[in-house]
């Protein structure tokens, strides 16, 4: 071939997992696309398409490379190894090690980690921790906090690939560190995430989004645009929406159009959909899209937005205040006036991006007259209701079949692409597929609320807290999402888990033209806890008290009343703080010794606590679980609580197994799927173990009772399953129930049960008094770190975390939640700041890498809750809350200065040091 002739399309020949392949493709097609779209090897994930996340890492001639950055022509003649090539019929030692260590949670980063670590292990079978960190430094994980990944790689040499699932015997499921039941597909690459199951004939959907924060727009000749472009099938706009063009996580506040009508309120807002064949969409030049923008003045600053003369984002929300929340108890002003010591301060926090490694993705298709949407999500029933509303369909004509979800952390509660792909499928009759780009995901989906907070806390001379006032403004962005939840939840929790007899806390959610702020692990409580816990340190200093002793003195105990007047039982905070005491004493002594010998580097130790009410605040929050015994003898658990990596598939099955009285191995999971699993609510607010777990316990007990009553035996009888038979044993008597001979219901169940559990809460009155939650979880963490006094950098040394989970249903998964939450807390404390328009990628917006998470020691405290299933309390949100304040307190301990704007970047730490010592 003449070098002067361009190569247009050619057969690219290379080797994949030992097999030669030949694919006809344009030479610049990226390898990730060749593998996924042409060869169906969807185990290689795409997280950013920019080489920042490492999810697409494959081995190219044995060395790791980002498949998204390798043009097809550069793969020619080379050998490629993907996650699908690691197992070879059975799990590799590393894959088994990952499962046994709990190193895979959602699983989206797992393939990239596994292939990268495989390359390392083939050169160095017993790598050091540093070698593992160096090798895996380019692969981001948002769920696990990396510590279990490091352990799994370092100890892979011990495995021969035979997986020990650690399945417990009958009656011992609760408390067992069983390997997650849904784990194997996560390590083989078989798991189907949102972008992994697109039908061959699906139309690709491209979303036209606003480049402006506030603008009006006028659409031009859309028909002409479509007609001139072969392969482009249709353009849809707000005018095409058959239902109500308005969605929102909280129906009474719903205000967000699926596609904007004439004007936009934030950068990234969807204005139109273009549907077409995959190749046509991939090469579409959006610069020619017929839209005329007229930009208008905007504000990203809540102070500006709240001014009297500021333009309103929404009618009926004067001052751009979406909502206010308030809790008041006693007389806080008098208490502060009379207090021997009063401290006050102000803290600001930034937008934080969820940064799950899986951008939103999914496809929709018509099954008869039912619209089926298969996408990543945390809340299938909410998706169903919102999608039906927007598309003007009855809810029973929308079915949500959640794809595996590659991380959520709150943002995948809100609908994103569901109504959009639903609209295209409904209008065209063809399947419609969409995977957000990283930039699109970061621009258009929700964030953690930036907070601007002030507070004052007073104590008497003995160190008893007398009162506290708190005020926080939360930038809720352009639309409501979960803004009201944050404004309401924060005042309930801003006291921390401490007895505060006089209290007033106000929270406001204020609209700006910034990204929509919504749910993010903790719903505003992590921000509020920063100011409360840093003020506690200051107060302890004024009192001359040890900082942990001060907290122990004020911690809530059984029988105390919270700031909402709720009398508590099973309060675990004291037990958590006491568990930290020896670590605290050791850490302080070590820091003191280090600091006596060093000038330019100083060590510091900090402590902070958390409490967190599980489930919705004072409103109904039911979960329903269904279960049945099939004629072939299967114990089927319809488990609709979406497992986004946290472990509900396993934990709820463990509760169910013990309540039914059968081994965990006998339980078969069904769902989640709105057509076959009842509504188990959203995966949020640390509610699934507690609420859906309780519903599963009730369903199992009801099912058991039906079987026992049929067998006419006492409640103590033992159950066992054999093919087609339930064996019931009581003392020496054995009764075999032949299932095949019994009538079955429409779903094929001989016995079945459906049970709902809704936690008992009471509304909050106008002063925020009431019983907002039925169950609380508790925790406290100690952070040890070193500050470089000349550079302002912070190096974490260790975090020790004590969390009261009531009952650790699965201790391995509990640790996974703790470590993952801490990693996100580290990001919030030290590095993460989302700046609209500037950090819409994962190289400007950094999340903690494997090198940024220090050793974590988890201490599981179990103070059983009378309400929770087997005493369990929620955990997922709690674990992030103490991390950032503990780190800020440790920085102050090391340097003498408090950083009042989070994240505490080196720039800010050094500026604070220099301000204090000019």
């Amino acid at each position: 071939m003449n070098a002067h002739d361009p190569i247009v399309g050619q057969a690219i020949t290379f080797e994949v997992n030992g097999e030669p392949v030949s694919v006809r493709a344009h030479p610049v097609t990226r390898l990730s696309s060749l593998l996924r779209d042409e060869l169906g090897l969807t185990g290689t994930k795409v997280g950013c398409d920019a080489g920042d996340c490492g999810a697409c890492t494959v081995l190219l001639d044995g060395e790791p490379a980002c498949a998204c950055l390798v043009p097809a022509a550069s793969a020619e003649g080379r050998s490629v190894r993907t996650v699908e090539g690691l197992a070879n019929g059975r799990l590799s030692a590393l894959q088994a090690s990952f499962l046994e260590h709990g190193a895979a949670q959602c699983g989206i980063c797992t393939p990239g980690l596994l292939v990268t670590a495989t390359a390392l292990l083939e050169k160095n079978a017993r790598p050091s921790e540093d070698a593992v960190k160096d090798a895996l430094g380019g692969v981001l994980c948002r769920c696990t906090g990396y510590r279990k990944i490091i352990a799994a790689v370092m100890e892979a040499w011990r495995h021969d690939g035979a997986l020990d699932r650690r399945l417990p015997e009958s009656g011992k499921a609760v408390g067992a560190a069983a390997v997650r039941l849904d784990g194997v597909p996560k390590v083989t690459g078989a798991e189907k995430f949102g972008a992994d199951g697109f039908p061959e004939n699906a139309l690709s959907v491209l979303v036209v989004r606003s480049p402006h924060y506030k603008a009006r727009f006028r659409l031009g000749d859309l028909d002409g645009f479509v007609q001139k472009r072969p392969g482009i099938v249709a353009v849809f706009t707000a005018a095409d929406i058959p239902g109500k063009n308005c969605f929102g996580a909280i129906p009474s506040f719903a205000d967000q159009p699926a596609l904007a009508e004439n004007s936009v309120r934030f950068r990234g807002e969807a204005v139109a959909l273009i549907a077409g064949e995959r190749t046509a969409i991939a090469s579409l030049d959006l610069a020619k899209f017929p839209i005329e923008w007229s930009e208008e003045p905007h504000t990203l600053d809540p102070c500006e937005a709240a001014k009297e003369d500021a333009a309103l984002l929404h009618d009926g929300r004067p001052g751009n205040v979406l909502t206010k929340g308030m809790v008041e108890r006693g007389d806080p002003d008098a208490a502060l006036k009379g207090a021997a010591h009063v401290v006050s301060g102000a803290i600001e926090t930034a937008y934080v991006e969820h940064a799950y490694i899986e951008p939103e993705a999914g496809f929709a298709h018509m099954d008869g007259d039912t619209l089926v949407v298969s996408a990543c999500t945390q809340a299938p029933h909410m998706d169903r209701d919102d999608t039906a509303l927007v598309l003007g369909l009855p809810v029973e004509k929308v079915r949500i079949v959640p794809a595996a979800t590659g991380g959520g952390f709150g943002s995948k509660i809100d609908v994103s692409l569901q109504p959009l792909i639903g609209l295209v499928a409904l209008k065209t009759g063809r399947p419609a597929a969409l995977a957000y780009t990283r930039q699109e995901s970061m621009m258009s989906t929700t964030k953690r609320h930036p907070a601007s907070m002030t507070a004052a806390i007073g104590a008497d001379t003995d160190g008893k807290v007398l009162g506290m006032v708190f005020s926080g403004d939360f930038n809720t962005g352009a639309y409501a999402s979960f803004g009201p939840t944050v404004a309401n939840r924060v005042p309930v929790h801003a006291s921390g888990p401490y007895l505060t007899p006089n209290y007033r806390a106000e929270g406001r959610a204020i609209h700006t033209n910034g990204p929509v702020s919504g749910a993010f692990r903790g719903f505003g409580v992590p921000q509020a806890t920063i100011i409360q816990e840093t003020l506690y340190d200051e107060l302890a200093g004024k009192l001359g008290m040890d900082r942990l002793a001060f907290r122990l003195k004020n911690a809530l105990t059984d029988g105390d009343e919270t700031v909402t007047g709720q009398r508590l039982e099973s309060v675990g905070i004291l037990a958590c703080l006491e568990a930290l005491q020896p670590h605290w004493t050791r850490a302080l002594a070590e820091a003191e010794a280090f600091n006596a010998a060093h000038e330019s580097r100083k060590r510091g130790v900090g402590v902070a606590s958390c409490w967190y009410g599980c489930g919705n605040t004072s409103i109904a929050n039911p979960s329903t679980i269904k279960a049945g015994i099939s004629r072939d003898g299967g114990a089927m658990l319809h488990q609709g609580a979406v497992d986004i990596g946290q472990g509900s598939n396993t934990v709820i099955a463990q509760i169910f197994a013990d309540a039914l009285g059968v081994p965990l191995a006998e339980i078969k999971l069904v769902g989640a799927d709105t057509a076959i699993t009842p509504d188990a609510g959203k995966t949020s607010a640390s509610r699934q173990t507690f609420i859906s777990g309780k519903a599963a316990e009730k369903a199992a007990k009801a099912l058991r009772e039906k079987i026992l009553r049929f067998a006419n035996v006492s409640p103590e009888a033992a159950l066992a399953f054999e093919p087609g038979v339930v064996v019931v044993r009581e003392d020496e008597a054995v009764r075999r129930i032949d299932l095949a001979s019994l009538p079955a219901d429409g779903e094929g169940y001989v016995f079945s049960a459906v049970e709902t559990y809704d936690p008992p809460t009471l509304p909050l009155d106008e002063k925020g008094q009431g019983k907002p939650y039925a169950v609380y979880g508790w925790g406290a963490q100690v952070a040890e770190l070193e500050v470089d006094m000349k550079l302002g950098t912070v190096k974490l040394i260790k975090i020790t975390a004590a969390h009261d989970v009531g009952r650790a249903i699965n201790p391995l998964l509990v640790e996974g939640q703790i470590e993952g939450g801490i990693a996100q807390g580290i990001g919030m404390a030290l590095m993460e700041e989302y700046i609209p328009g500037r950090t819409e990628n994962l190289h400007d917006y950094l999340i903690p890498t494997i090198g940024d998470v220090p050793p974590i020691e988890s201490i599981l405290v179990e103070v059983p809750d009378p309400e929770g299933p087997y005493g369990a309390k929620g955990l997922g949100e709690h674990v992030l809350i103490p991390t950032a304040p503990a780190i800020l307190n440790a920085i102050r301990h090391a340097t003498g200065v408090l950083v009042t704007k989070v994240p505490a970047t080196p720039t800010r730490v050094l500026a604070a040091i220099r301000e204090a010592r000019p």
Partner: protein
Amino acid sequence: MAEPVEFYEPRTIAEAVAVLASVPDACCLAGGQTLVAGMNMGPLFRPPALVSLQRIDELKGITQRPDGTVVVGAMVTHRTVAQSELFGGGLEVVREAAGCIAHPAIRTMGTIGGSICHADPAADYPAVLIATDATVVVTGPSGIREIPAAEFFVDFMTTSIEPDELVTAITFPPAPADAVSVYEKFTRASGDFATVSVALALSLRHGRCESVRIALGSCGPTPVRAAAAEQRLVQTSLDESDVQDAGRILCDAAAPMDDVRGTADYKLMLIPRLLGRTIQRAQERAVAWRVE
């Protein structure tokens, strides 16, 4: 509809130069770690034509000339440089910088030629080429040009090569036998671009500085070098006051910008502190070298 990218895959430097001369707006594709990431952002970011250099074997080796000059082909990957034993002493800074570019997967594909042609001031190689007094070898229709690194980087993401020229190699002149060199990179997290980086090559005799070259990365549109700062250090024993003075001079020459990696003020504060750290590491290296 955007036109598909024209793709060329020449086998020799001469063929590549001929394609570049005949196809308007053609862009060289080296390792692709920046270019492909850009192209992935959409058709708007795709050049009309690409000239892949991956089949040109002439661009792939590292060799050492008899005089000690190390010649690195433009298509040599960061991993290969980071593992090469030809970079020691005064050239160790090259190996050290290559080993901390992004992360391992990027180092598998990314190349030295691609990196310097992108001329991102936050990248690692530009400052290293200045500190080592390297030369960029370029081939165009009118033959071969050798461009001193200081004349190669002319502005933010801008080099002095013409559109029809191709970088074929980088030559690193031999350093004095007693020279040591260090690359110090300050980042927010491992794998990030530098907030500020310092590349330093130094000759010490009995603890006194015989010669020194210093270049800063991420401190302006191109790598920053200040002859006065180097002169301030020569024939001193590199005491704290010497280093502080040199740091001040470098700060005056630097023009960092506020960005997500730090404010300009912070970067100016970093410069003297990182310089001190870099010099200290170089001194330690010199001691270790003598012991060996």
